[in-house]
């Protein structure tokens, strides 16, 4: 018996060791999805006491307010990602290409630091800062930018602000990583070929940093799509988003089946996003092909010139 076990162990050693992680993934990620999917398409008839298959909840989502809420969350996530991108790019650019080495390490260190504190703590900090008697209100009133009756909490802007401050480092880091790894000789080569700084940025630095930008957008877009603590705490529950609806469905109104259907749609989101990225690449590739086709046509047209 012992021998047989030993034989199995040696023959399948790599399977034995790689299995737990994959199993964990299946049990706690894919199986839950299966359960969610099951919840979302199976309903219980209380009269007949039977379970039956239904697409009711999906129809409900696509025909009522829910789809609009999903769009709204999408919009919020897109705005957050866009704002993050606009702030993060200069910072990443500065970190990667300017500044002395030692200073850079310090800046980088201080960049990760806030993102490693709890999101809840950061949100609370903003609440504390923006409240009527908080530092920012006080400052803006003192400088007479806003009137004393104006307050900053509980609106859309505050939600975006909180989101951006929580997710900004996730946008900076991937862009920084790509820019930092980029060979500085490309910049030299570009300058050597007659491009000024702006042209170099437009034609070399930015296109080469695109993988980092995509990664950053993914890392910001997806969590801000599902976020519910920030709209609740900084938005005064006045704005309902996908995340808050799911929480509501699961913890409050107990319509789990609807919540599960909503969640399933949410799972589709990253896949959708990935498709977008691939589509973008394909379009670029097509553009390139067209360009080189034009060029070939040009060559054919001028055959006498170039042989």
């Amino acid at each position, binding site marked *: 018996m012992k021998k047989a076990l030993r034989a*199995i162990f040696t023959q399948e050693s790599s*399977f034995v060791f790689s299995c*737990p992680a994959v199993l964990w993934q299946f049990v706690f990620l894919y199986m839950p999805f299966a359960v969610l999917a099951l919840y979302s398409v199976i309903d219980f008839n209380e009269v007949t006491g039977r379970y039956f298959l239904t697409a009711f909840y999906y129809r409900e989502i696509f025909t009522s307010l829910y789809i609009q809420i999903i769009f709204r969350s999408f919009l919020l996530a897109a705005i957050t990602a866009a704002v993050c991108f606009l702030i993060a790019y200069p910072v990443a650019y500065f970190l990667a290409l300017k500044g002395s080495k030692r200073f850079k390490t310090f800046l980088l260190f201080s960049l990760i630091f806030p993102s490693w504190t709890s999101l809840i703590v950061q949100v609370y900090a903003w609440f504390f800062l923006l409240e009527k008697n908080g530092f920012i209100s006080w400052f803006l009133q003192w400088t007479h930018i806003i009137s004393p009756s104006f307050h900053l*909490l*509980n609106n859309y802007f505050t939600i975006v602000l909180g989101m951006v401050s929580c997710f900004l480092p996730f946008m900076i880091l991937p862009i920084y990583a790509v820019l930092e790894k980029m060979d500085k000789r490309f910049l030299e080569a570009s300058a050597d070929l007659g491009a000024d700084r702006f042209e170099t940025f437009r034609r070399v630095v930015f296109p080469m940093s695109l993988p980092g930008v995509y990664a950053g957008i993914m890392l910001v877009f997806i969590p801000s799509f599902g976020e519910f603590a920030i709209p609740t705490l900084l938005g*005064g*529950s006045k704005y309902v988003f996908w995340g808050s609806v799911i929480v509501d469905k699961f913890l409050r*109104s*107990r319509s789990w089946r609807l919540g599960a259907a909503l969640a399933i749609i949410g799972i589709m989101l990253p896949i959708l996003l990935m498709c977008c990225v691939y589509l973008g690449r394909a379009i670029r590739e097509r553009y390139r092909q067209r360009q080189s086709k034009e060029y070939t046509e040009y060559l054919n047209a001028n055959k006498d010139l170039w042989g």
Partner: protein
Amino acid sequence: MNERLDKLAACARRLMRRSAIVGVYLVVLMAALYVPLLFSYFKTQRTLNVYAFTETFSPEAIELFEERTGIKINITYAELDEEIGAKFAINGGIGYDVVNVSDFMVRHLSKQGYLQKLDYSCLPNAARLNPRLLGRVFDPKNAYSLPHKWFMYGLVYDKNVFKVSPDQMSLAFVFNDPEQLYKKGLVSRPYRVCMIDSPMDAYFLSMLSLFNRFDQFTPQEFDAITRQLLQQKQWVECYTLYTVEYFLLSGIIPIALTSSNFVRKIWDMSDQYEFAIPREGGILVIENLVIPKTSRKGDLAHEFINFMLSDEVATLNSQEYGWTSANKSAQETLDAQYKRKSHLFPDEHVFKRLHIPLFTSYARRCADDAWLRVGFA
């Protein structure tokens, strides 16, 4: 041919080996996950898992209980009755021994058969309870639950802005447009309000303000309520229950539709605010202690409930957090300063205006859906 068969056999053997390995792992994992369940059956340790809202039991009271009985208390916090309901729906509340829930949820849980019947022989302190709170419609014989604290949903407002006597305070001040009220000269300035963030209570109060009724509504009336709530959103600063004191005290809003729980805290800070049950009516919330059927420590749970209902501990709790206790004498020993504010301790006349909303599950679903529309607007 033979070769192929051999290959097939080898393949099958490998498959079997691998599934055996996966099986072993799965068994280990499942065992690890179900261990707590086994523990809950065989545990002899004297601990109680209490599930309650925040600011319910004061740390001192808990300490006192642990000291006197040697029973260790684990408290988990919920924010809403619905959360508790959701946890019960999952597995009948396995793991919890004493739960603190509000009236309508008591009815729901007892209907579903999640609760144990109380044994009054172990609860001598039940006699110390305020009779006004006993035998209410959600548990007419108090077979499953005993009230432990209570409060009202009413209006907290700034006396400088609303120069109205508390008896004349109306829900119109939160449901009607403050601009219009200001133009009519009823208030000294336009303002924004804080609104309760639970759909049921919002619908109930809106119904009271619109139709002066609370028993049922027709679909047309329901739509009218939804319209009113949608319209109200324009002047709502925040949908919240707990942060109300912050919004009032920092002067962002002068009036809030909220619970009487926070009033004492607000009074501690400022004299400017008054609490009133609107003349259309308010909501009475009775929080009760119940024992889930799944609890195997009924004796300890009874001991805990009895302890919490005693005069001494009830006073301790209500003084710590400022809510009104269901215990008669605890209420009497409350600070004299608050006593004179009669509206926190309503007389029979005012008390009659308080109702306990019990929605059918269909009405609740409708309210939930419509509330989503309010949130989305």
